[in-house]
């Protein structure tokens, strides 16, 4: 412990210090490294679009909702649970908002409230069933997913675009990113932009990072996921902690639903289908373990980015068929899982 060398690059040193290396940190480092390598090689070998800042921001624009959903998913996964209803809740939120705006002449604000309300209701009920009645999370949220799916069709069975002016204005709002931009073919400088959803998503990432790192509740998530009996003995209210995780996840699904709605501007029963699996995949790639107790919100953000970058790379390679995307995502998930499995197994062997 020579404090002199430590002072020079304390943060980095601390980050990579062998002795204080937690599982969470190992996986986070892998995730970020993989994303950076992947994006850098895309820029180098594929050039074209990838060197433009807007390409990167488009990834954010398209995946703002997924980031929010994945954050919620990470929370429950850290406590050792799972929520597979988020995708269909998103669809239900979209459809309800769309119907409210176009058929009932509602305002954007009440639409937002509806969306949040739906998410909160799902979180509340699922959380209650899982935490207080101790029913397996997979079954409860599976039922939640079925319910949301059916309700979406019951609310309205067909797809339609929202024509509400107020909403269309909101949807078209672009926030330029200062200092970033590129020159287009005509020679004009086009500043890079992000949609409102991205700002919302980033704010949520920051808030959740703070929640997980510093608050009692956030640390409780980790403790409960690590070993819930121990957590109980350590004086943590396990039931309430689990409830809060699912409540938050549901609420985030509500926010995610509205953000998704702002991005697509339509209601459809097939919206966000499979989003729950993408969210789980992103969380895993981001270093959250389904066994609980290990994970990081920043990792989840990078998980979503990695996932969508690989999608972009695949399509820019000219492999346009939809199946290639799925196969590459699956392959990537597979590699990540194997790496996690091997890294943690080796680490655990060392200490034994």
């Amino acid at each position, binding site marked *: 412990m020579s404090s002199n060398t430590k002072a020079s690059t304390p943060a980095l040193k601390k980050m990579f210090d062998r002795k204080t290396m937690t599982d969470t940190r190992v996986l986070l480092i892998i995730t970020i490294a993989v994303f950076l390598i992947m994006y850098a090689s895309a820029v180098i070998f594929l050039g074209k679009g990838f060197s433009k800042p807007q390409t990167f921001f488009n990834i954010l624009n398209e995946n703002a909702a997924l980031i929010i959903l994945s954050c919620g998913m990470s929370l429950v996964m850290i406590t050792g649970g799972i929520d597979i209803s988020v995708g269909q809740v998103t669809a239900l939120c979209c459809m309800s908002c769309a119907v409210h705006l176009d058929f009932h002449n509602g305002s954007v604000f009440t639409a937002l409230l509806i969306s949040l309300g739906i998410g909160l209701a799902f979180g509340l009920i699922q959380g209650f069933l899982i935490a207080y009645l101790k029913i397996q999370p997979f079954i409860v949220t599976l039922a939640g997913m079925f319910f949301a799916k059916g309700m979406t069709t019951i609310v309205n069975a067909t797809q339609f675009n929202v024509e509400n002016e107020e909403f269309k204005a909101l949807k078209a709002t672009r926030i330029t990113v200062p200092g970033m931009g590129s020159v287009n073919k005509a020679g004009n400088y086009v500043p890079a932009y992000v949609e409102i959803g991205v700002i919302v998503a980033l704010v949520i990432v920051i808030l959740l990072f703070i929640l997980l790192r510093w608050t009692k509740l956030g640390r409780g998530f980790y403790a409960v996921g690590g070993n819930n009996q121990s957590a109980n003995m350590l*004086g*943590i209210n396990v039931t309430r902690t689990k409830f809060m995780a699912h409540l938050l996840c549901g609420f985030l699904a509500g926010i995610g639903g509205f953000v998704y709605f702002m991005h697509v501007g339509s209601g459809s029963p097939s919206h966000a289908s499979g989003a729950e699996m993408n969210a789980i995949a992103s969380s895993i790639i981001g270093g959250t373990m389904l066994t609980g107790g290990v994970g990081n919100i920043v990792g989840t953000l990078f998980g979503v980015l990695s996932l969508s970058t690989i999608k972009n790379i695949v399509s820019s390679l000219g492999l346009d068929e939809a199946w290639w995307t799925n196969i590459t995502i699956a392959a990537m998930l597979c590699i990540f899982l194997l790496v996690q499995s091997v890294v943690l197994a080796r680490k655990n062997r060392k200490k034994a």
Partner: protein
Amino acid sequence: MEKNSVLEMRGICKYFPGVRALEQVDFTLREGEIHALMGENGAGKSTLIKVLTGVYHKDGGEVYIKGIDKPAVIRSPQDAQNVGISTVYQEITLCPNLTVAENMYIGRTKGLLTNWKKINADAGKLLDDLGIPAIPGQQLGSCSIAVQQMIAIARAVDMNCKVLILDEPTSSLDEQEVAKLFKLMLDLKKKGVGIIFVTHFLEQVYEVCDRITVLRDGKLVGEYVIEDLPRVQLVSKMLGKDFDDMADIKSESDTENIDYSSTPVYQAKGLEGTTGIKPFDFSIHKGEVNGFTGLLGSGRSECVRAIFGADKVNGGEVLIDGKPVKINKPLDAMKNGISYLPEDRKRDGIVGDLSVRDNIILALQVMKGFFKPISRAQAEEFADEYIKLLNIKTASSETPIKSLSGGNQQKVILARWLLANPKYLILDEPTRGIDIGTKVEIQKLVLKLAGEGKSVTFISSEIDEMIRTCSRLVVLRDGKVVGELKGDELTQNKIMATIAGGES
């Protein structure tokens, strides 16, 4: 409430379906005393402690705590912490994925946000003070079990509690660590903390405790000042009977007639495990009972695990009845007539949700093979036979094994391996954590088996138990065989000296 008492429990009752776990139990803890809570397994010690710490909700009685006029309401571990009761459990009750520092402070910090700098600094100081070899920022899972236990103790000690409960904290600690813990306990005692100490080790009780409360079958037997209660009496109070058949088990057996010139039943030459034991030679003859001994972590369990193929074996030669065989996995060993009763019953022994019957036939079934299931009727027969033979207390052979008491679970596992009809039976700590009555039964059984011509390896942390049963002891230190004792050498002093090393 008495003037100098910090805790009084009056008329505590607790019922589980079909069981009266606690019936009208009183318990008093005074300021600055170390109070041993003694009793056999199933006597209600753990239940009483869990009631006190809010893990269980009591069905009757009242708890008074110094400084609180009304009976205290303790409905969760958090309530217990708030009224000044802190606890260290036998099993590690910390979170392996969190850091050492966080484990020490989680659930008891004030304020909404965690001040990482402060808790790391505080934890570092506390770890230094107590001489615990851990870094605050280290992940708890990467510490050894003993260190984890010390950290749990550090957490409990740091809570400025009025009452400190230590529920068998010493089972995973070595001697030095136990000494450290005792010093800590005496320091706390001086500060006026009342300490409840639960342990199976009688020596430890007489080393540090002031008073003893004895429970039996969920009822209070009595509270005694330590000077007034000699060991023999304590044991008889715990058992509820006078106890003298322990001394003369050995005379029943005739282990002297072993033919050492015959081919050994099992012989290992230069057997080398991957779990940190040095290559060793070992052999055992027909009808012989031998033991492996050494301190915790000396490699005694690792040796027998290597013999059974439970851990990967690196090299060496194994002969069964003089013929060379390969033992790479447990099934190989089983097929060669070796049985192994593991040290950690809960983790490696029982299959919790399965019935007693399935647990009994498991090993035999596996040996018979995947395509030859034992018929239901035959399985019933086997189960009933061994339930009767070993006097297993269970409602029926259908009962899931996890609902049996520790001693009875152990008997079921024994039944499993007896049913497999081995030539060579390895028993790793078969008597740990079970009541004295069952202990004696098991010791007797071991000698009976040897009399029938089986070879047995018996491992126990209690040396007198080994002396009573074994005719030969292999002594290990730091993963190496350092001696073999036979006949007259089997005395407490000689064994201790060999274990400790540096003997003349």
